C-alpha cells in the first residue's frame, strides 16, 4: 500500500475518533509546548546575559592587585593591596601587542556636593582610553584630554545618577563646579546612562576624572586599585592575558614558581560561568518538559493497543485479502506518527503563543530558536515511531484466522 494511501487511511481512522485522538494528542501537545517555552526562556536569559556582559565590554580585561604573601598573619581585602602602579600601565602600553587600550583605575568613595545637594558616590580616576574599554559614551559636553591628564586638571564627567541627585531641578550640569571631598571640579561632560549591570550594580552612579588628578589630590598614593585593558578582539582575549601576565611578572620581579601579586579576569571567563548556569537551568527545565513528552508517548501506545484490539476483525479481513504483515504494521505505525506529529504541530503553536505571553506579561527575555522547533518535531516523530511500533507489531503478527473470528 502506498504511503499516500496509508496517510489517508490513518487520517480517516483518527477522524472517526476525534475526541479520543485529541485527548491522546494532549500529552504530546503539552509536552512540546512546554519544551518550546522552556527552551525559549532558557535561550532568552542566556542571550540577555550575553548582551549585558558585552555592554560592559566583552573584550575587557581587568587586573586586580593580590597578595602573594604566605598564609598567616593579618590578612586584608583585595583593594588594600598595593602592587599595581602607573609603571605597570606604561609597561603594558609599550609591550603588549594584542592590547588596544590600557587605563589605570584609581578610585575613591566620598561625598559629592553641589550647592545644597549632596550625594555619596565613587570617583574613578582613569585614562582617556577607559571609555572605549568599558564601552561608555559621552552624552553632553566633552571627554577630558591627554593634556588634562598631564596637568592633573580638576575636571570631571558625571554619570546620570549623580546628575539626578546633584541637579534635581534639571539644570544643565556642564560648566558647573561641584565638589568631591572638598576638591572643587568643573563638570565638562555627562555619560550616556547604562543602567544596572547584570549583577545589579548601578553603572551610572559614578564620577570620572583624570587618574592623575585623583592620585595627586584625593588618594595621594602611587598605587592604583585596578588596571583595565581591552583586547584587540573578543576572540583574542586569551593572548593579551598571557602578554599582560608576562609583562607584570617582569616589572614586579616575580620569579618562576612564585605566586603572582595580581589577578587577571576577563569577561570571557565570566560569560562561561554565567552561560553554564543558564545552560544547566535550560537542561533542567527541558528535561522536565521531556518527561511530559514521554508520558504523552505512553498515552499514544495505550490508545494504539486499544485501537488494534478494536480493529482485530478489520486486520483479519485485510490480511485475508492480501495485506502483508508490513502493510498492517505501517498502517498502525503511521496512525501513531500522525497523532504525535499533529500533536507536535499544535504543541509548537501553543509553545510559541505561550512564549509570547510570557514575554508580554512577565517581561522575561524570550528567544525561540529554530533548533528547538526542529528538535521538538524530531522528538515527536521519534515518540510516534517508538511508542507506536509495539502495538503496530502486535497487529502485524496477528493470525488472520483468529483475527477474522475475533468477537
Amino acid at each position, binding site marked *: 500500500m502506498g504511503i499516500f494511501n496509508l496517510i489517508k487511511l490513518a487520517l480517516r481512522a483518527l477522524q472517526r475518533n476525534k475526541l479520543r485522538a485529541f485527548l491522546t494528542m494532549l500529552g504530546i501537545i503539552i509536552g512540546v509546548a512546554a519544551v518550546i517555552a522552556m527552551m525559549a526562556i532558557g535561550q532568552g536569559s542566556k542571550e540577555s546575559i550575553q548582551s549585558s556582559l558585552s555592554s560592559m565590554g566583552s573584550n575587557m580585561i581587568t587586573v586586580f592587585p593580590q597578595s602573594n604573601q604566605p598564609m598567616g598573619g593579618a590578612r586584608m581585602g583585595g583593594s588594600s593591596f598595593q602592587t599595581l602602579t602607573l609603571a605597570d600601565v606604561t609597561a603594558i602600553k609599550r609591550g603588549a601587542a594584542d592590547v588596544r587600550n590600557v587605563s589605570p583605575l584609581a578610585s575613591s568613595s566620598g561625598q559629592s556636593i553641589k550647592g545644597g545637594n549632596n550625594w555619596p558616590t565613587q570617583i574613578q580616576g582613569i585614562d582617556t582610553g577607559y571609555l572605549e574599554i568599558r564601552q561608555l559614551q559621552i552624552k553632553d559636553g566633552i571627554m577630558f584630554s591627554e593634556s588634562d591628564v598631564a596637568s592633573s586638571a580638576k575636571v570631571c564627567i558625571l554619570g546620570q545618577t549623580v546628575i539626578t541627585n546633584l541637579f534635581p531641578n534639571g539644570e544643565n550640569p556642564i560648566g558647573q563646579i561641584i565638589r568631591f571631598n572638598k576638591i572643587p571640579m568643573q563638570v565638562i561632560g555627562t555619560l550616556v546612562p547604562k543602567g544596572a549591570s547584570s549583577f545589579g550594580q548601578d553603572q551610572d552612579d559614578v564620577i570620572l576624572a583624570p587618574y592623575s588628578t585623583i592620585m595627586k589630590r584625593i588618594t595621594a598614593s602611587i598605587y592604583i586599585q585596578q588596571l583595565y585593558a581591552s583586547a584587540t578582539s573578543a576572540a583574542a582575549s586569551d593572548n593579551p592575558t598571557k602578554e599582560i601576565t608576562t609583562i607584570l611578572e617582569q616589572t614586579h620581579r616575580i620569579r618562576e614558581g612564585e605566586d603572582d601579586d595580581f589577578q587577571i579576569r576577563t569577561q570571557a571567563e565570566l560569560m562561561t560561568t554565567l552561560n553554564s548556569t543558564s545552560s544547566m537551568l535550560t537542561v533542567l527545565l527541558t528535561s522536565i518538559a521531556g518527561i511530559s513528552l514521554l508520558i504523552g508517548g505512553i498515552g499514544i501506545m495505550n490508545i494504539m493497543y486499544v485501537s488494534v484490539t478494536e480493529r482485530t476483525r*478489520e486486520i483479519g*479481513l485485510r*490480511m485475508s*485479502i*492480501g*495485506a*502483508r*504483515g508490513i502493510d498492517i504494521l505501517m498502517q498502525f505505525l503511521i496512525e501513531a506518527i500522525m497523532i504525535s506529529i499533529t500533536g507536535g504541530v499544535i504543541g509548537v503553536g501553543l509553545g510559541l503563543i505561550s512564549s509570547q505571553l510570557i514575554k508580554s506579561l512577565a517581561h522575561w527575555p524570550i528567544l525561540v530558536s529554530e533548533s528547538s522547533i526542529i528538535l521538538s518535531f524530531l522528538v515527536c516523530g521519534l515518540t510516534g515511531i517508538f511508542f507506536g511500533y509495539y502495538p503496530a507489531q502486535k497487529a502485524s503478527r496477528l493470525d488472520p484466522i483468529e483475527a477474522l473470528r475475533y468477537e
Partner: protein
Amino acid sequence: MSKIILHIEDIKREFVMGSETVRALKGVSFNVNEGEFVTIMGSSGSGKTTMLNILGCLDKPTSGKYLLDDVDIMHLNRNELAKLRNLKIGFVFQSYNLLPRTTALENVELPLFYNSTVTSEERKERALKALQSVKLADRADHTPNQLSGGQQQRVAIARALVNNPVMILADEATGNLDTRTSYEIMSLMQDLNAQGKTIVFVTHEPDIAAFSSRTVMLRDGKVQKDTSNENKRVAKEALESLPVSDDY
C-alpha cells in the same frame, strides 16, 4: 479438458493442544476444475473450517500437497501467502466483514490497495465494474450501515471479484440471510459461475448445496462423499417459486 485450479492430495492437519494432538483432517484429496461450482459440506467437527482455512491459504496443512493454480503453497512464507491470496482468491464471509463507515466502493477497492501494480484510476474503475456486476453501482457511495444484509453480502462478493481471482471462496455466505435473500445470493453465484468463475462454497445447509454442480461431503476429517449434482437447482426459479411475502 479444463484446467485444474485446486489440486489437493492427502492433506492432513493436526493441532497440538497441550499434550493432546487433534487431527482435524486425516488425509483429504480432491481436485477442482476451472469453472466448477463446488460446495463443501459437513456437520460441525467434520474439518470443514480447517479445510476452508487451508483452501484460503490462511493456514498450511501439516502434510500433503496443495496446488492452487499450479502454485505449491507448502513452500510459501507468510508474505508470499498474502500475495497469493491477494491475486488468486476472493473471500466471501458469513458476516460480510465490510469495513464500517467506509463506502461500498472503497470496500470493494480494498484488495487492489494491496496490489502495487494497480494504479488508483484503474482501482476505481475495476471496483465500479465489480459493483455493477452485483447490480449495486447506484449504491457505491453508501456505507454498510445504509445497506441491507443482502446488499452488504453483494458488496462483499464484488470485493471478492475485483482482483479477478481464480477462485471465489465462500464461507457460509448465506448463513446470516433469510431464505429469499439467500436465494438471491445463490442466483448471483450461479450467474458468476456461468460467466466462468470457479466457486468453492462451504456450507452446512443441503438446501444451498443443491444449487452447486458438485458436493464434497466431509466427515470426521475425511471425504465421505464426492458427488456431482445431476439435477442442479436454478436459483432464479427457486426464487420465483417462493411465496410472495406479504407486507404486514
